[in-house]
């Protein structure tokens, strides 16, 4: 066992964290923008767009991964176009890890941001406007600070989902050691190879990360928890 642990290649940890950090930058910005944009849409259109944006959360990740693979395969138009035109490839590459993790984590950020925006009292927005604040000032000084706890906890949850992504990542990016093998993918392949010690090590690492993430969400949204304890 000692021998097994001493010979572990730590690259999955770095690939996982790198994927998580790059994904969350995209997901945070896109999720926020999508939530803000959807709020201004008229009723029925809103519910359809909302359903589409939430799909990756409810679909099995392998389905999302398969669809991404179909779309970006180097034998299909979009894949060929991106490869020949911009030298961008998603299949079996680290960019694929980021894309898969981003697609799966996006709905968590989007829905958290929407819930956070919807909780902002419209009277605060009206107050800002009647006081003469510009629309940009109202957004940056009133809406975002009021929604901040929800936005941050949404971001942390999306980050946690991104670093734990397995299904879509293994379909699109595959399992190349040192390139696309993340911790979640590593655990699956170590178990199937019978290396339970190494699988156990990675399980401990990912469990610790998950625990820290949930703890930090709780610290940020602590006020809400206090309210709930008042019911008991």
């Amino acid at each position, binding site marked *: 066992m000692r021998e097994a642990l001493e010979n572990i290649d730590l690259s999955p940890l770095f690939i996982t964290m790198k994927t998580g950090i790059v994904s969350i930058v995209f997901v945070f910005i896109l999720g926020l923008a999508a939530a803000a944009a959807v709020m201004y849409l008229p009723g029925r259109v809103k519910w359809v767009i909302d359903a589409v944006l939430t799909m990756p959360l409810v679909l099995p990740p392998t389905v999302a991964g398969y669809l991404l693979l179909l779309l970006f395969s180097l034998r299909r138009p979009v894949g060929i176009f991106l490869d020949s035109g911009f030298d961008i490839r998603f299949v079996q590459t680290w960019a694929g890890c980021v894309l898969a993790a981003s697609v799966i984590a996006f709905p968590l950020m989007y829905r958290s941001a929407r819930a956070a925006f919807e909780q902002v*009292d419209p009277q605060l927005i*009206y107050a800002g*406007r*009647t*006081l003469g604040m510009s629309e940009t000032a109202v957004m940056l*000084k009133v809406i975002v600070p*009021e929604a*901040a706890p929800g936005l941050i906890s949404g971001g942390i949850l999306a980050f946690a989902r991104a670093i734990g992504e397995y299904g879509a990542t293994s379909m699109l990016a595959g399992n190349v050691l040192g390139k696309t093998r993340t911790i979640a993918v590593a655990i699956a392949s170590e178990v199937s190879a019978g290396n339970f010690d190494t699988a156990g090590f990675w399980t401990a690492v990912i469990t610790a990360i998950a625990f820290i993430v949930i703890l930090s969400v709780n610290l940020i949204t602590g006020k809400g928890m206090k309210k709930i304890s008042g019911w008991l």
Partner: protein
Amino acid sequence: MIDISIQKQLGSFRLDVRFRSDRHTTGILGASGSGKSMTLKCIAGIERPDSGHIIINGRTLFSSDERTDLKPQKRRVGYLFQSYALFGAMTVEKNIMAGAKGSRAERRERAAELIRLLELDGLEKKLPQQLSGGQQQRTALARLLASQPEIILLDEAFSALDTPLKERLQYEMLNILSDFDIPAVIVSHDRDEIYKMTEDTVIMHGGRVCAHGDTKELFEHPKELETAKLTGCKNISPAVRTGSRTVYASGWGCSLETSYEVSSTVKFVGIRAHDIEACDGSAVNSVRVTEERTLESPFEVTKILRTDSGGELWRKISRDERLGVFPKTEYVRLPPECLLLLE
């Protein structure tokens, strides 16, 4: 000073408000759902009327004919929300500065001045949730004054407060409005608030103005059913004109003499609970009643009485009047000069 005409369709509800007022304080009294808050929101530019005009101090804020529709930012209308709408992430000072214009130094100076005037000293660095209700209202008012509005709109500003604080803040508000010499429109469902705080009153019902006039005059001589109800008249009966100075009140089953000429359009007759007097049965307008229940308040007693025809009359007696000496069955007199003839 204020000249508005607002038409707006909201589902099956139609808002059609027209009034002018050049008094310092104007009240809008109405039950919930009468459209009074919507009217204020239209003046502030939070809601957009379908048609009409809104002119404040000669400045057109909205006009469907001239295609004018100023943004809320350009209207210089100060809106005081019932919940005060303070920005939770900003300190008292930052909240007030958010209303002011100019450079950072100018805004800070303006905030410091208002903090002193509204006695918020020492609270500059506090967050809104650390303040008492009264301090929150003063902060909201300071922020609003910092934006130098031409008119202030109070939307049920005192409705959520308990009585002692409410009376204190109403008094402070009147002082501030006269010190800063800013006209105000005060919306409320509370007749005491409107009576205390305004010179001019608009009564709203079902999206329309049903009466408008000098506040004292309107409360003393209401001419419409809704005005009588909203100004606190407890006893109202359908009425038919039977002579130039007599009506038959079908709800109470009695004929009544009045001190005023009865018009042919009269539909109801009313009398305020504290105007009803006890009598021996031989007086003019006396009605035989049975006492049903007594409701006691700290400073007055309400007797709920039933007439022989089954109608109900509420009589209020202040505490110092011979308390507890009433016989169970009595006659009451509805003084002719106190009868309200309503359309």
